[in-house]
C-alpha cells in the first residue's frame, strides 16, 4: 500500500515495524488531502524517503512532527538544569539594564542631555557631530520622544558595553589560537545568521518574560559578533615586522599585547565596536516583542494597531539614534587613525 513497503519487506524489518500500521492523530497534510476529497488515492510517483513517507510503510519510524516534538521535549527536560546555571549567571545583566534604565529615565533632561553632548564632544572632538547630536536630542524632545529614545539608548549602552567587554578578550584569544578560531568561526556565523526571532524562543522558555536580561541576552548574542571578528582580524593583521622588532627587544607576551598588538589593532577593533552598536540598535525593535522598552515599543504599536504615524515617527527616531551613534563612533575611530597612519 505505501511506497516504501518493499524496503522493510526486503530487508526483513517488517516484524520490527509491527503490524499495527499507525493510528494517532492525522497530520495536517492528510487532513488537507482528505478535505480535497483525494482520500489518499492519488500518490506521488516516487516520494522522497522522508520520515512521514517511511512512517506510512512502517509505524516504528517516527513522523517529522514527533521529531520536532522530541526536540522540544529535550529542551524542556534540560530547561531546569540550564535555568539553574544560567539564571544566577545572567542576573547581573538584569541589574545593569534596570540600573541604566533607571538612570536614563530619572536624571532630568537638562542634566542628561548636556552630559551626553559633552561625552560626544569628548570622544569625537568633532564640532559637526556634536551639533548634530544636540539637534537630534532637541528634536526628539520637541516631539515628546526623548524619554523613549533615552530608554533605547540605555539598552544600547549596556549591551554594547558588555559586548565589548566580552568580545575583545574572545577576539584576542581567537587571534592567538588557530584551534579556537576554527571552533569560533562557525559559532559566530550561526549567531549572525540565525533569525533573531529564533533566539527569542528558547530564551522565553528559559527566563521570565518580564526580566530585562531576556532581551539583553538576545541583543548581546546578535551584536557581539562583529567586535569579536574584527578584534581577531585586527590582531592578526598587525604588521609582522613590528611584532618581530618587539620580540627582538625582548618584550614579553603582556608587553607585546598591550604595547603593540592592541594599539595597532585599535582601528579594526573600533570598526567592530561601531558595527556592534549598529547591530544592537537593529535588535531593539525585535527585543520590544519581549518587553524591552523604548522606541521599539512604539514601532510595534504602529504595526499592531496600524497607527501609521506613530510607527513611522518612532522608526525615524531609531534612524536618528543610529546616525548619531555611528557618526560619533566613526569620528572617534578617525581620531585614532590619524595617529596610526604609518603609510
Amino acid at each position, binding site marked *: 500500500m505505501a511506497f516504501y513497503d518493499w524496503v522493510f519487506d526486503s530487508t526483513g524489518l517488517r516484524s520490527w515495524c509491527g503490524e499495527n500500521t499507525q493510528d494517532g492523530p492525522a497530520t495536517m497534510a492528510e487532513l488537507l488531502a482528505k478535505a480535497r476529497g483525494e482520500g489518499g488515492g492519488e500518490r506521488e510517483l516516487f516520494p522522497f524517503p522522508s520520515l512521514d513517507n517511511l512512517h506510512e510503510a512502517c509505524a516504528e519510524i517516527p513522523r517529522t512532527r514527533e521529531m520536532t516534538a522530541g526536540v522540544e521535549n529535550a529542551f524542556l527536560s534540560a530547561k531546569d538544569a540550564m535555568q539553574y546555571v544560567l539564571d544566577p549567571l545572567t542576573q547581573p545583566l538584569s541589574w545593569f539594564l534596570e540600573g541604566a534604565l533607571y538612570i536614563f529615565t530619572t536624571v532630568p533632561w537638562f542634566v542628561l542631555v548636556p552630559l551626553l553632548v559633552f561625552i560626544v564632544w569628548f570622544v569625537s572632538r568633532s564640532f559637526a557631530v556634536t551639533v548634530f547630536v544636540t539637534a537630534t536630542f532637541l528634536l526628539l524632545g520637541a516631539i515628546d520622544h526623548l524619554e523613549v529614545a533615552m530608554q533605547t539608548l540605555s539598552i544600547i549602552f549596556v549591551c554594547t558595553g558588555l559586548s565589548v567587554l566580552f568580545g575583545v578578550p574572545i577576539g584576542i584569544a581567537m587571534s592567538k589560537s588557530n584551534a579556537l578560531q576554527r571552533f569560533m568561526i562557525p559559532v559566530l556565523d550561526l549567531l549572525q545568521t540565525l533569525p533573531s526571532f529564533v533566539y527569542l524562543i528558547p530564551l522565553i522558555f528559559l527566563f521570565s518574560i518580564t526580566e530585562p536580561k531576556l532581551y539583553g541576552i538576545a541583543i548581546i548574542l546578535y551584536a557581539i559578533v562583529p567586535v569579536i571578528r574584527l578584534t581577531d582580524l585586527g590582531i592578526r593583521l598587525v*604588521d609582522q*615586522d*613590528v611584532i*618581530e*622588532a618587539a*620580540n*627582538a*627587544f*625582548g*618584550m*614579553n607576551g603582556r*608587553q607585546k599585547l598591550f*604595547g*603593540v598588538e592592541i*594599539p*595597532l589593532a*585599535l582601528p579594526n577593533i573600533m570598526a567592530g565596536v561601531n558595527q556592534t552598536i549598529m547591530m544592537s540598535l537593529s535588535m531593539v525593535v525585535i527585543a520590544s516583542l519581549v518587553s524591552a522598552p523604548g522606541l521599539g515599543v512604539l514601532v510595534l504599536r504602529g504595526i499592531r494597531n496600524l497607527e501609521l504615524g506613530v510607527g513611522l515617527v518612532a522608526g525615524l527616531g531609531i534612524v536618528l539614534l543610529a546616525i548619531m551613534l555611528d557618526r560619533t563612533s566613526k569620528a572617534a575611530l578617525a581620531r585614532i587613525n590619524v*595617529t*596610526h*597612519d*604609518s*603609510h
Partner: protein
Amino acid sequence: MNNSHDSMPKIRIRGLYKVFGSQSENMLPHIYNGVGKAELLSEHNHVLGLQDINVDMQVGEITVVMGLSGSGKSTLIRHLNRLIEPTAGEILVDGEDVMKLSKDGLRQLRMLKMSMVFQKFALLPHRTVLQNTALPLKVRAEDEELQKTEACRWLARVGLEGFEDNYPHQLSGGMQQRVGIARALTSNSDIMLMDEAFSALDPLIRTDMQDLLLELQLELKKTIVFITHDLDEALKLADHLVILKDGEVVQQGEPQNILLNPADPYIEDFVSDINRARVLKVRSIMTPLEGTLPADAHGHIQADDTLESVIAHSDGDTAHSYIVMKDDKPIGTLNMTDLVKALVPRIASKERETSVI
C-alpha cells in the same frame, strides 16, 4: 681594541643548519649524508635554508654577511637571537650557547646583549620618536627619567634633535632608520644586528647612513653583524666579510683578500663589477719591505690609501713607484705597474695564485 683573531670571538657559529618544513629534525641525517638542497626539496619536500655555517664574529668588528636574495642571510641573522629557531648547531655568544637558553634567558639576551635594526624600520607607529627610541629601556622597566635622557642623547647622536615628539610617519625613510639605529643604540647592548638596514633607502641617503654607522663604530666599537645584498656596501663596511650562496658560506675573510683572491667563479663574477680602485687599499697589494728602501721611489703613500688616491697622486704615470708608510714607518713598496694589474680582476687573481704558492 684587540684585533688579533686568536682571542675569543664575541659570536661563534658552529655547524649551524636550518631546514624549513614540517619534519625538519628528521631531515638532518639526509643532509649529513650529503643530500643537496635541490634533492631535499624534490624528494623530501623540505627547504634547506642554511647548511653548515661556521663563522666567528670578533669583538668590535663589523661582520658583513652578503648574499643575493634567497641565500639565507636574513635567516642567518635571525638565528643569532633566535627569532628563527635553528635546526642544528651551536651559536656561542660570549661562550654561552644561545640554543640552550630558556625562554627567560633568551629574553634577557634580547633585552641586554643584542639589539636589532630592521630593513623596514619596524617602528611603533602609535608612539613618538622619543618613545620609540626609549623602547629597549621601557621593556627593561628602567626609570622613566633615564629612559628619556638616554633616548634624547642617542637621538641627538644620530642627528635627530628636535624630532622627539614627532610620529614616525612624519619622518622620511632615512630619518626613520636613524630612529631605528638610535633605538638599537639606546639598548646599550654589545652586539648590534642590522638586517639590510639601509637597503630600503635611496642611494645618497644610504651613503650618509653608512658614513654615520662607521663614525659611530669608531667611537662605540660594538660588535656589528650587518646583512646586505649590496657588494659596495659590504666592502665599505666590512672588517670581516662572509659571502653566502644557497645557504652555504662560499668564502669569508678580509674583504680586500676576497676581492684579490675570489675562491670560486661565483665570487669572481660578483666582484667583477666593483670599482676596484676605490675599494682596494695600498696595503693589500704592496710588496713588503725587504732590507733597504729603494732609492728611486717617487714619494711616500699611506698603507690605508685607496688605489684611486694613489693614481691621482701619480698623475697616471705607470713608471712611478712609492714607499708605503704606516704610522710614519716604511713597511713596503708599490710599483704603479702592480697597481694597474691589480685593477684587472683576472690578472690580479692569477698573479696571486702563483705568488701565494
